[in-house]
């Protein structure tokens, strides 16, 4: 968290007027998304880090889907302000939520 402040200061100093987009990590370990709920802003990137030997997905019903191969990472840059409940299509008992606010 503290690493954010120099960037904010820099952004203010150069008058960019827009905070730097963050990268937020969600770890998958033993079929659990952690943290299960993430608050983010449009422009931020979510990186899912899959520690399992199993393929997973982050899927929003009727919406986007990110494939997350075993022992690999996958990312998604958030484009719209929304609350997205997602699940793993292969293991629908795995659930997570992104609460995306406008910037």
């Amino acid at each position: 968290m503290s690493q954010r402040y120099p960037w904010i200061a820099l952004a203010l100093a150069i008058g960019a007027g827009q905070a730097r987009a963050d990268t937020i990590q969600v770890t998958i370990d033993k079929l659990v998304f952690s943290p299960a709920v993430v608050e983010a802003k449009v422009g931020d990137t979510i990186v899912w880090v899959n520690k399992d030997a199993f393929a997973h997905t982050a899927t929003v019903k009727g919406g986007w889907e990110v494939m997350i191969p075993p022992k690999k990472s996958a990312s998604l840059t958030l484009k719209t302000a929304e609350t997205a409940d997602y699940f793993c299509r292969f293991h629908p008992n795995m659930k997570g939520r992104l609460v995306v606010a406008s910037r």
Partner: protein
Amino acid sequence: MLIRSTATLAALFLFDAAPQVQAADKPTDPQIAHIAYTAGVLDVEAAKQALKKSKNKEVIDFAKDMVRDHEAVNVQALDLVKKLKVTPEDNATSKALTKAAAEERAKLAKLKGAAFDKAYVDNEVAYHKQVNGALETLLIPSASNAELKGLLETGLKIFQGHEQHAEHVAGMLK
């Protein structure tokens, strides 16, 4: 037909899990490892049959998921038994599972098209339900090695996921 074999196994697991059973009748770690591994192998075999017979994309995708996940679980299981120097030991539950699966495969072999798809997916729901029940009530509580217990707990989450996935596919076939 499906109901009969499932009921037989349910009875078997219930018998095994019955409270009056002596502690000595609880499966040992080598037996538990064998049961869990066998359950995975049997589901891979069922999936391979489906991959040969089915033309339905949902069913084929599901079967591919089963092969991938169960093979991955079993690689972990083999690594673990090697590390723990445990030799999986054949037992009555593994034999009953294998026998029931062979009977189911023979029944499914006679079916085609949508009838096959429905019977396969319905059996996948029942099979995962049954294995999950055994994991929860018998195998996990009986496991004495913490790492084996941990792998079974992860296996349970995977299998529960498969059960929901199979239910979803079954819903789409209707």
